[in-house]
């Protein structure tokens, strides 16, 4: 299938779509983790996102999509100074991937045929300034997870092996999806995802029917279907671009910062990453809806997805983390508290 399913045509799954849009507005949020049952459209949404993202400007022929000619790594020997537009890279990290393939390795062909030592960039290079998508992230081999943790933290891929000493920028938005029944995710990796959403299949008949209808139309009447939804996608892309521009002008009042800290304290979220991510997500949310100032509403809108996976897990508490976050938001920002202030 050449074209992915259009993003706007995904029925329901509001939270997942919102999280993905927020990372498109501010890649610094640091990725989305989508956990849910089989057959709920996780992969579909990620593929759709790839088609939705605005293009980036990059140096022609640069293996790491550098934004300026002087940023090209010297090992790449990029000669062209020409800038071209290319789609935001969305790179798939398949489960069976080898370490060489991820970080890059000695270019065996050149080593064998010409006896040269050259670096062949891996998936991390290709994903720079874009997205790295891992389907079934909870089944990923541990040593690959270790690699990713390190790179996602530093934003730089350092290869010291086989006599090569190479470094290149690797800033990407990590998108993972998986089914929690097949295994848990390592807490360290969990923490690297800025936002986390849980998806379930729609419960009401009407939206289920609608899903089937759209998918069927997509597969069997592709041209008409794409035409109908391409406009919607284009509009959404326009809004993302506008929000990106608006992000810098956005004001963050001190009271919002305070709310942010209070909420994290009340929930006992580990570390400060939760606060920072929530604030960034709230800013992106404010920019997306077109407000000039980040307010409590924006915080409440993004709190569940920013904090859900950072709570200290209490297995004896039957309520899920999402409910705990919602409860805390209600207590702190709810009508009662507002009235008291």
């Amino acid at each position, binding site marked *: 299938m050449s074209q992915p399913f259009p993003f706007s045509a995904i029925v329901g799954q509001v939270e997942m779509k919102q999280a993905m849009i927020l990372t498109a507005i501010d890649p610094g949020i640091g990725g989305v983790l989508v956990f849910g049952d*089989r057959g709920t459209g996780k992969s579909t949404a990620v593929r759709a996102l790839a088609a939705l993202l605005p293009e980036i400007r990059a140096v022609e022929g640069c293996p790491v999509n550098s934004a300026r000619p002087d940023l090209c790594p010297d090992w790449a020997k990029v000669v062209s100074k020409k800038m071209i537009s290319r789609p935001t890279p969305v790179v798939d990290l398949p*489960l069976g991937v080898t370490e060489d393939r991820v970080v890059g390795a000695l270019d065996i062909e050149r080593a*064998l045929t010409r*006896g040269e030592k050259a670096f062949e960039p891996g998936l991390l290079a290709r994903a720079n300034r874009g997205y790295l998508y891992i389907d*079934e992230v909870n*089944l990923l081999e541990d040593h690959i997870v270790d690699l990713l943790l390190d790179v996602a933290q530093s934003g730089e891929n350092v290869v010291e092996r*086989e006599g090569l000493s190479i470094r290149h920028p690797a800033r990407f938005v990590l998108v993972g999806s998986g089914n929690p*029944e097949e295994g848990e995710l390592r807490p360290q990796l969990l923490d690297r995802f800025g936002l986390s959403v849980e998806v379930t299949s729609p419960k009401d008949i009407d939206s*289920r029917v609608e899903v089937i209808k759209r998918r069927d139309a997509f597969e069997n009447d592709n041209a008409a279907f794409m035409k109908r939804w391409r406009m919607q996608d284009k509009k959404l892309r326009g809004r993302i671009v506008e929000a990106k521009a608006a992000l810098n002008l956005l004001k963050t009042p001190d009271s919002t910062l305070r709310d942010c800290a209070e909420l994290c304290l009340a929930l006992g979220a580990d570390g400060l990453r939760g606060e920072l991510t929530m604030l960034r997500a709230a800013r992106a949310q404010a920019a997306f809806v077109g407000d000039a100032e980040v307010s409590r509403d924006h915080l409440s809108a993004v709190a569940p997805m920013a904090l859900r996976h950072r709570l200290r897990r209490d*297995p004896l508490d039957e309520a899920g983390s999402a409910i705990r976050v919602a409860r805390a938001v209600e207590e702190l920002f709810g009508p009662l508290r507002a009235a008291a202030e």
Partner: protein
Amino acid sequence: MLPPLDPWQRALLALRLLHVDPVGLGGLWLRARPGPAREAFTAQLAGLPLQQRRIHPGIGDVELYGGLDLSATLGAGKLITRAGILAEPAVLTLTMAERCPAGLAARLGQALDGQGCALVALDEGAEPDEQLPPGLADRLALFLSLDDLPLSAVSETIAGDFAAARARLPRVALPAAILADLATTAAALGIASLRAPLLACAAARALAALNDHGAVEVEDAQRAVELVYAHRATMFPQPEDPEQDQTPPEPEPQQDDRDQGQSDRIDIPDEILLEAALAALPRDLLAQLAAGQSSRATANSGTGAARKGNRRGRPLPSRPGRLDGRNRIDLVATLSAAAPWQPMRRAQAPHHAALHIRPGDIRVKRFQETSDRLLIFVVDASGSAAMARLAEAKGAVELLLAEAYARRDHVALIAFRGETAELLLPPTRSLVQTKRRLAGLPGGGGTPLAAGLRAAMEVALQARARGMTPSIAILTDGRANIALDGTADRALAGEDATRMARLLRAQNTPALVIDTGKRPADALRDLALVLDAPYIPLPRADARKLSAVVSAALDT
């Protein structure tokens, strides 16, 4: 409504559908032991329109995705890669599908989703919990079970030419009403995944193409439902919500009530589709549902791959070595080792144009892997304190799972009471699954300690075969009073328990005896001695204390 098909007819119909649209349907899950019926069936897969590849559960990534052809590369002196099986569209036949590991299932699932592949999974599982991984089963439209089929039922074969039907397929229309009915029926049968109705749509289209209908008709949809939904159903249809439907709730949805007043929200085909699905439901569905275990509740069972130290795990620096067919070459290290000698060797043998690699240059890969640990809780569910003890054990299991990711612990839970022991939680690392499994726990009855130990030993043996390191934690407060054969004979019961304990000891399985009674019991202390296990009296153990004690005792 059409009468349901007999099993062989249904098998033939599934085959025909596969011939019409293998990729759209995803494929077929065939549950059958090897035998003449399966032979007769699989022989007819030869005519499928795509090329066929056979794979097995132990297949590696190089075979799937392609990779370097080492001998050809070294011989030719230039890079020669081999294309993997998934490189081009194909019908993959997966043998022994019940042993398919989760990783392979995920890879195949991705191939089915986007790369125009179809899968025929030959599932030879003997036990109900040995079956195709659910992630794969979800993506395959068709399911057939040929287990009970006598050879006499295998009569005809399918006729040859499906090209015409394939040509008709893109033009088949799917009326919106039928589409909606297919979706509604799936929901009524408790099928959560949205892939099921999509696959049913594909099956209905293929049927219409096969029957030369211009658009999907009710009978096509009915057969599609029979083939696609029956094995996925997780519940019998509930009566409609009162707001949606004014008909009174009907206790037996199978009964034909088309002449009763129907509201206009539901039209007749819906009812027909539901009936078609119900007619094809597996006979033991009720039993499965009663056991609180839907057909997809068991993940990961039946994967029997033992871990091999030199194949996977954390890479260690490679070492000089010989290729003995088991270890893997580290190509880059080999080349680096050979590189400095090239000019010299070239001077020695100028007629040899390619690289000069000598056996001494070969470097082999090494991996280090620590095996996963399995903690088996054996909990006494007898007598009065049973409920509290089980609840605490459950809490401890969940706590350990929640805390112990880094230590890679798996946890299993066995409860013994009455006359037997029961494996309540098979070895798992999933907190989600644990919560679901342990929602309700039974308690009360005698103390069949020996049976509990035997169950623990079985789980431990299985776990060891899968490359895990099992440990056993026994929680009880009393003496054994039920023997292995179920008789209430205190002396015999004690003897049996001691015998099982000796067996466990002989297997070198580390254990831990936790006495939850108010007063320490000598019998348990003796049992701990036989097991060579620490004996910990812990009256009024709560979940946190329990998990702390268990971790501390087993970590040393």
